[in-house]
């Protein structure tokens, strides 16, 4: 995927809705997440190798690719699970230090999360993260503020990150909304 001198104008294509499913194996209690295009997430326990996977939670999400309007390059984002708005929850986190450095310049920091177990799942390359960042900045009027996207690998323990995930959880829930 070479990106020569074209000054890319990205647009979102092949958007299809689905579910991000969080599963746990009740044998070794390992947690795994993946994107499922099925309309109704499967709830029966299933066996895969020596794991017994059980769906713990599901949230609505959307898969998409980015295509350059000028040179038609297509970039897929199957390694991206969801974006998280960094709210500076931990002082010793690298993303927090980055935010401190740019504070006052109205730059909002988002973290691109992959799928668990992070280690053996395909990682989003820095190049793709840059393309994602350009896409969103092109979509907004960047004169008064812009966004910066970083990889979750900057965070030592991604599971304890307390920012705001952009993900539709509890859409199917029937419990009436509570004052949070």
């Amino acid at each position, binding site marked *: 995927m070479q990106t020569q001198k074209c000054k890319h104008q990205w647009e979102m294509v092949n*958007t299809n809705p689905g579910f991000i499913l969080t599963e746990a194996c009740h044998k070794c209690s390992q947690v795994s997440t993946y994107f499922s295009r099925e309309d109704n997430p499967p709830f029966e326990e299933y066996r895969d190798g020596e794991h017994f996977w059980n769906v713990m939670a599901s949230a609505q999400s959307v898969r998409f690719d980015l295509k350059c309007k000028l040179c038609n390059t297509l970039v897929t984002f199957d390694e991206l699970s969801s974006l998280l708005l960094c709210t500076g929850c931990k002082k010793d986190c690298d993303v927090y230090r980055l935010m401190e450095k740019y504070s006052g310049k109205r730059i909002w920091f988002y973290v691109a999360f992959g799928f668990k177990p992070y280690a053996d799942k395909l990682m989003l390359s820095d190049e793709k993260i840059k393309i994602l960042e350009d896409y969103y900045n092109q*979509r907004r009027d960047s004169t008064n503020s812009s966004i910066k996207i970083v990889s979750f690998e900057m965070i030592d323990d991604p599971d304890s990150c307390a920012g705001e995930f952009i993900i539709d959880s509890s*859409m199917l829930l029937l419990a009436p909304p509570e004052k949070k």
Partner: protein
Amino acid sequence: MKLNEIIEKLSLKVLTNLEDKDITGVYISDMLSDVMSKAGAGNIWVTIQSHKNIIAAANLIDIAAIIISQGTDIPEETIELANRYNVVLLGSDDSTFVLGGKLYQIGIA
């Protein structure tokens, strides 16, 4: 059309500090993944959701203002986060459908 004019015509409750902006259009949805992929910068987003992660989605694509419909109670944290990322948060007792109709009637195509 300017945001202040809309707020006045629809007598919306202003919940955060207000910056007047041009409004480019209206997007109605309760699904963040929907907004993230379809809504435009400078849009007014009408939703029933009041959880604080709506600010994360609105801020990503530079939504001008969010109208939370149906008189839903809006938690303090959502208002704080909105102020921090200067997203304008507005409240209305009208239902989502009625707001859609009214916004069209005052001339936002």
